[in-house]
């Protein structure tokens, strides 16, 4: 009996393990849709496009090698065509998670299964609500609450805990942005964004989970950063023609900007961008020195002599008025050459005539 039980277990247990493994594999495949599936779902579930009335063609798919942060980037581009219009959509995924979407061509001829509100503020609220359902991310609830509290579309900035919410205009773009803020430092890279252009949705981004904050503790204050930058610039002068250039840095003006920048993949740390201006223009057209450093360690990352690409101010007019406009197909230089040739011919003719007269 015991022998038969052992035989039975020996046969059944491996079979059960195989079945469980297969179930795991199959469920993994069935639960995790591809990036293309996720892209199409976003169009339907978040943007409410009537995908039954569009012919969706995969126009491009690019997968990039794994990056330094351990992420795989995939770009997906769809062309949605209907009898009335074409919409081009670009998606960007990182590790199978949607981080960016850009639509061209939404407008009055767009086919929705439910028409979104014409009011941009209400449209944004609807987008956020549907995106929350699509994503399932917990951090979206706080953002949604902040947006729902807004009753009028105008530039605003509000902060709740570690989320700063802004409605702002970038030129003709109206942008609803939620960014992370830590220790009073805005983390511009880490956020969620919906943008409208000409009354229609155009851009979406969600990088909240992509980036992590390493530290926002400032070990180097603004004044200290400027002092480090000045000392570094003087001790590491740029060279021109192989010769170090002695320059003088003005006390004022000086600019110092603080931001959170990636180090170690997608982990963010505070970073100072210092611009030191010189008392005059030095060889190489250099008018300022840029020094950058990590604000949590004081380590200098770059020191660049910044030359200028010309002068924005009008130069003094030439002392003599410029030659008049030249006819098309010719140039001032061509005219000058022509005049020189004519003058040379005249001189040559006079010389020949004079020689002939002498001989007579």
């Amino acid at each position, binding site marked *: 009996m015991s022998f038969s039980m052992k035989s039975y277990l020996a046969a059944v247990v491996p079979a059960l393990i195989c079945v469980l493994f297969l179930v795991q594999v199959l469920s993994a495949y069935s639960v995790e849709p591809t990036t293309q599936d996720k892209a199409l779902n976003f169009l339907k579930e978040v943007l409410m496009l009537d995908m039954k009335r569009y012919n969706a063609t995969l126009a491009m798919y690019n997968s990039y090698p794994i990056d330094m942060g351990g992420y795989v980037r995939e770009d997906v581009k769809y062309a949605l065509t209907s009898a009335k219009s074409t919409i081009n959509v670009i998606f960007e995924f*990182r590790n199978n998670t949607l*981080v*960016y979407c850009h639509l*061209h061509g939404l407008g009055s001829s767009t086919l929705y299964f439910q028409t979104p509100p014409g009011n941009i503020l209400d449209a944004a609220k609807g987008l956020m609500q549907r995106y929350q359902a699509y994503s399932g991310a917990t951090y979206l609830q706080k953002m949604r609450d902040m947006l729902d509290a807004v009753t009028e579309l105008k530039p605003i900035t509000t902060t709740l805990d570690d989320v700063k919410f802004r409605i702002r205009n*970038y*030129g*003709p*773009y109206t*942008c609803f942005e939620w960014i992370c803020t830590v220790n009073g430092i805005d983390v*511009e*890279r880490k956020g*969620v*964004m919906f*943008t409208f*252009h000409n009354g229609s949705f155009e851009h979406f*981004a*969600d*990088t909240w989970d*992509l*980036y992590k904050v390493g530290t926002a503790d400032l070990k180097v204050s603004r004044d200290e950063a400027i002092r480090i930058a000045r000392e570094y610039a003087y001790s590491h002068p740029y060279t021109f023609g192989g010769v170090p250039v002695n320059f003088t840095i003005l006390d004022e*003006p000086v600019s110092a900007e603080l*931001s959170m*920048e*990636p180090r170690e993949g997608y982990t963010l740390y505070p970073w100072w*961008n210092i611009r030191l201006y*010189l008392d*005059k*223009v*030095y*060889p*190489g*057209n*250099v*008018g*300022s020195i840029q020094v950058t450093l*990590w604000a949590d360690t004081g380590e200098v*990352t*770059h020191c*660049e002599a*910044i*030359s*200028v*690409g*010309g*002068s*924005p*101010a*009008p*130069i*003094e*007019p*030439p002392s003599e008025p*410029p030659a*008049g*406009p*030249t006819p*098309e*197909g010719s*140039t001032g*230089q061509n005219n000058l050459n022509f005049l020189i040739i004519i003058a040379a011919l005249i001189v040559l003719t006079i010389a020949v005539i004079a020689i002939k007269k002498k001989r007579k």
Partner: protein
Amino acid sequence: VQNLAQHCEQDHPTTAIFYHGHGGKVNITNNIYGPYRYFIYEQAPQQGYYPPPWHPITVDDWQDIYNYTANNHRFVFLWACTQGNEVGGYISGYHRGMPYAWSHRSSLSQDGYASPDTGNYVFIGFENMSRRLSYWPTANNNYKYWLVFFYYFALNGYSIKDALDEASKMVWGPNRPFYTTELYNGYWERNPWFDPNKPCSYPLNWEWWWSNMRVYGNGARTLPH
């Protein structure tokens, strides 16, 4: 530049060009407030102590570009000061303005990124002072890298405006397309020739210049790839 422009115009059906260097402008009447004509330097000033006009080799919009171009410079990108100040057109005897000089079109969209026109031409240049390619707007990428990213995407099936977005996202993060960056929205750049002893109202001596990257024409166009 002039020879290349002429060669491309005569021997190629369409052309895309990029130029990096120095640029400037000069008023074509005696009014220092304009109108202006624009130029680039074929060689950067080696000493650089004083502003123009001491540099002998300039390439002017009205005589060195306009007269050697006609229809086929479809995408022109000039990374130098003042090249994108205005579209330009024919005025006071001059075919002035770099976008106009290269394309022979004076009706290019003023914002070819946000509101592309339907034409065949795209021009990118800087209004007032260009950012230097060696400048680091972020910790890991300077503008040289931005430019490499831009051309990578522009030559791989992305439209000009999408390539501007992608390059900007590579530098500032995936939630920062072109219109959120300082390139589109502008930045202050200091005029290193500023003299505090001269009156600041004099435009030759303004200390700070509001500058940005301008896209004219049809940014929705895609380069052949």
